């Protein structure tokens, strides 16, 4: 990561001081699994986000199926069963935004570790969908701010 950060333009990565350096495709896929499940779980608790949460969940289900195919092809071992999730603090838009952003960044930062053009294409397309979810949550937060 240090090499990438050094080479990557400051403008683009200015907000990514904590950017993660993934060492393998398995590590990338595991982190995406974790963050995706976290976001789904949080969104499911927001009654006002019902239709959006269902849409996000459906997208994530499709992404999970496609990542399963990727895992089989790239050969990383299957993820261990996820640990029981910690109890969730009260949900607010900011915490949703943080997890959604972490999920999008995990895709972006994970691409260089994949080492496979088809896998990059698949995860980049997933990232586009997740970035759209993030943009919607950001607009939601902006609307809340304006309402005070």
């Amino acid at each position, binding site marked *: 990561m240090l*090499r*990438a950060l050094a*080479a*990557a*333009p400051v*403008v*683009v*990565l200015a907000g*990514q001081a904590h*950017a993660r350096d993934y060492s393998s495709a398995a590590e990338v896929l595991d982190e995406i699994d974790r963050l995706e499940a976290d976001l789904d779980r949080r969104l499911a608790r927001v009654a006002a986000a019902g*239709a*959006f949460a269902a*849409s*996000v969940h459906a997208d994530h289900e499709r992404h999970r199926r496609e990542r399963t195919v990727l895992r089989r092809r790239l050969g990383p071992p299957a993820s261990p069963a996820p640990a029981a999730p910690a109890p969730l603090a009260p949900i607010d838009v900011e915490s949703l935004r943080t997890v959604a952003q972490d999920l*999008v960044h995990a*895709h*972006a*930062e994970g*691409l*260089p570790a994949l080492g496979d*053009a*088809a896998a*990059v*294409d698949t995860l*980049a*397309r997933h*990232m*586009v969908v997740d*970035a*759209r*979810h*993030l*943009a*919607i949550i*950001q*607009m939601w937060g902006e609307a809340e701010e304006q309402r005070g």
Partner: protein
Amino acid sequence: MVATARAAGVAGPALAALTGGKALARTEETDLEILSAALLLEHHAIALYGHGLKLALFPPGLRAYATEFRGDHQGHRDTQIAIMEERGAAAPVARDDYDFAHAPAGDDFVRLALEIEVAAQRAYTGLISHIRTSDYLLSAAFILIDEVRHMTVWQRVLGLRIY
């Protein structure tokens, strides 16, 4: 999308790849082709936003978004110029014949902005897997995230479906 890419000046192998006509090998030359195509789209977007802001063509209340997005595109431009120069290549400059003279105001101008954002998003999405080097791949990924935000905001403003 292809029409917008053409209007921005995108040509050659990158345009062929976008139209599905040619598979690009993952080489340094391909990285430079993609950088050039991306830069032309960024130049086009900066010019369009600049025109809209200068002539107050964005609907009232949306100038802040337009200003933010123009700033993002300027950042993307500078980033990619720096990458090209670091590799010893000459970056393409902005065209001097953008024709926005008859650009409409209001929601119709937002539609023009949306068009260039959709073109940029699709171009980066379509080309990203052909990028060879980790530094540019990472930069392109973060640029793509910005393009998706721009596109989603304009789609919502125009009442289009966003999920």
